[in-house]
């Protein structure tokens, strides 16, 4: 692949801790190979900051292959940056032009408080999962895996929802900071499978209640979540959640 080196101006959100008000700082990213990933570009900038005796920019990252859901940068106004269906760690510098100014912010949502610089606290997602994102089956109780055939289309649709990596881009993209795409993906995964059936109603009610309790906003169907989701989780899951929720409420 053809590649070149580019220079960028970075405007990065710096915030010492949760109490600090925070502000943008500008940095130069020089001699950046277009073959680098966006996070590798940050590695280069940080290495320079360290060598100059400054505090490097804190950001969350781990697997760097688009699956752990840890990376979480809001780049030029888009969650995970300009490429569709891509996490920050899989975004490559080919996406940028020489001389461009790139603005990088943390996820912005009251339910995701900033811990430092670009690092936010997403433990609210864990608590939504704890409210019902499971099948209550203890280890050792299972019947044979093939005892219950499952329609392939339903299994595939369940998988498509289960691909959610829990990164929080949907919340960051939403003007209401709603967590509906995340919650609906988990609700859908189980609602589509026979294993999810026994707890189907309590699950959706409890998970939605927890979501509201965490301070996520309401869903107004703008579709920003689906557009920004790095795993392209469909907004039709939200419609399914709404149906599940309604029918669960009606049958109470």
């Amino acid at each position, binding site marked *: 692949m053809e590649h070149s080196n580019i220079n960028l101006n970075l405007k990065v959100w710096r915030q010492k801790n949760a109490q600090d008000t925070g502000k943008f700082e500008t940095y130069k990213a020089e001699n950046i190979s277009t073959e680098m990933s966006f996070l*590798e570009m940050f*590695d280069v900038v940080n290495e320079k900051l360290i060598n100059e005796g400054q505090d490097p920019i804190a950001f969350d990252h781990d697997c760097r292959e688009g699956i752990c859901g840890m990376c979480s940068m809001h780049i030029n106004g888009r969650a995970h940056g300009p490429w569709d269906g891509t996490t920050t760690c899989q975004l490559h510098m080919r996406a940028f032009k020489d001389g461009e100014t790139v603005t990088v912010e943390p996820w912005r949502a009251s339910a995701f408080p900033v811990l430092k610089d670009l690092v936010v606290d997403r*433990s609210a997602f864990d608590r939504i999962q*704890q409210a019902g994102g499971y099948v209550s089956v203890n*280890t050792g109780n*299972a019947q044979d895996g093939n005892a219950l*055939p499952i329609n392939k289309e339903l299994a595939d649709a*369940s998988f498509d929802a*289960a691909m959610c990596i829990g990164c929080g881009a949907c919340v960051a993209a939403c003007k209401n900071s709603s967590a509906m795409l995340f919650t609906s993906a988990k609700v859908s995964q189980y609602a589509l499978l026979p*294993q999810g059936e026994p707890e189907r109603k309590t699950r959706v009610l409890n998970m939605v209640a927890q979501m509201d309790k965490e301070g996520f906003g309401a869903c107004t169907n703008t579709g920003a979540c689906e557009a920004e989701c790095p795993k392209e989780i469909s907004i039709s899951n939200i419609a399914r959640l709404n149906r599940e929720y309604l029918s669960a409420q009606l049958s109470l």
Partner: protein
Amino acid sequence: MAINNRIPAGELAQKWSTYKSTCKLVNPANKRSIDIIVVGTGLAGASAAATLAELGYNVKTFCFQDSGRRAHSIAAQGGINAAKNYQNDGDSVYRLFYDTIKGGDYRAREANVHRLAEVSGNIIDQCVAQGVPFAREYGGLLSNRSFGGTQVQRTFYAAGQTGQQLLLGAYSAQMRQVSIGAIKEYNRHEMLDVVTIDGKARGIIARNLVTGEIERHGAHAVLLCTGGYGNVFFLSTNAMGSNVTAAWKAHKKGAMFGNPCFTQIHPTCIPVSGDHQSKLTLMSESLRNDGRIWVPKKQNDTRKAFDIPEEERDYYLERRYPAFGNLVPRDVASRAAKERCDAGYGVGTSKMAVYLDFASAIKRYGKIEATKQGLANASEDEIIKMGKQVVKEKYGNLFEMYAKITGEDPYTVPMRIYPAVHYTMGGLWVDYELMTNVPGLYALGEANFSDHGANRLGASALMQGLADGYFVIPYTIGNYLADEIRTPKIDVNQKAFDDAEKEVKDRISHFMNNKGTKSVDYFHKKLGLIMWDKCGMARNAEGLKQAIQEIRVLREEFWNEVRVPGSADSLNPELDKAGRVADFLELGELMCMDALNREESCGGHFREEHQTEEGEALRHDDKFMYVSCWENKGNYQWELHKEDLVYDVIHPSQRNYK
């Protein structure tokens, strides 16, 4: 030190069932007053934590990520093996056991591996019951595919995200226990020491990575489910945060390290593109079901892949290993790629890559599709279009990932791949009960050395992690804890905790006050290069001796020259990295010592001095049929103990995939 692996007596196939029905039990009331710490929340940690909490124990989980769901098991792509024989193609518990022992080049314990094969089927059942959306056939039943080193289809999968789906299943079980208070989570926490009292593991020292606070946690047993140490090479397929620190601290507190030099180099990874590279990305082994690996027959061929005619291509795996072809085990495939590249047949700008080509699979699937749809006169273009669609359904996410990283379209241009560090078969030595030689301290999953010998077969890591967590530890831990029911809650205000905490704090303050000039990564990258060049895919005595010297020099420089910015009482990723690299700098030396000691080739450990005329690994069973168990004597001194491997059922032979 006498080595006791506590393998139960009796016939191999009966050992586990006999053990289960005779081991000691802890009654439900007593379980409620027993505390267990689980460090790491990957497949092994999450499954163990959930299962132990279900049984009634009080569990605390620790992970350095912001959520348990992010552990690196999540990145496993291809699948999980199980001896279900759903495909009616001759699979059985014995055959999975046999393939795993043979794949490991006869350096694993028979009893452990047989148990693994026995429980493999239960894992699939359990995951299905949890709502893991495995791939299915149109009839609604579970689908299988093939992985390397086997001739049956026993790999269950969820597209290219099997690890993610299995981990989220285990994580959901864990979250369920958190919701009822049976598990207390400590995320963004890193374990920095094990605390032992009267020789038994009684707790840990952990650092809250957000506040920097040093915490003490006591427990009746400590489980390390902290993964492998491939990041000692800096570049690997591991996550950036994957590290050896928890296992290494345990090692320094007396736990032996088993077979540290056994490293798996995975044959199909995206090649290194430049100095900036921070990690390497795997292209799943499942791709070798359909992709054909080749290089040009002519040395230094600079033509594009497309311009090289069929008869000028060398499908070297199919040529050398006709019986297994592109699905030979990983160690064999990696060495074969290295051999071709070293001999000047490599492709791409660096010449350190080979092709993984889907053109013939695309055509084959396209023709099947055309037949299915009754299109007798489909054109070549139509066939290719349909074939690409089938390949997309099977491997779409992997192809996309490849395209994003390289900027090339693998549907039209063959992938360029090269081997990269992926997994470590070595790890903390454990007995049959998964306990290290420190009573009360266990190691599960990749963190232990136990089941894969000198080479792990594809789709067996997920199997082992979940086997250990769901089906082994719930039984074996009871056998130990039954004698601990009179031990009251562990008081963390004891001297052993004071001492361990002081050591942790002293080390942190050294880092913060060291007025060095070089970043942590500077040292990590240097260490990685030494390890890759001299303790990587091929090793020799001279190189290993040099590596040991170089690591010692580098380690000294690290302690004098490392610069850690920021403060110790806030979120400080550089400080976290400094501690991890300090431990890698010790582990690296031990890996080289182990590789130097093992004067034979086996599995992923290839000593250039020991190869057959055809360049295959040459074992010396008369001298090295043992597990190397290294005891830390302090001051960078180690003593080697040997656990002899006894083969009662399988007769070790030269591995043959031809």
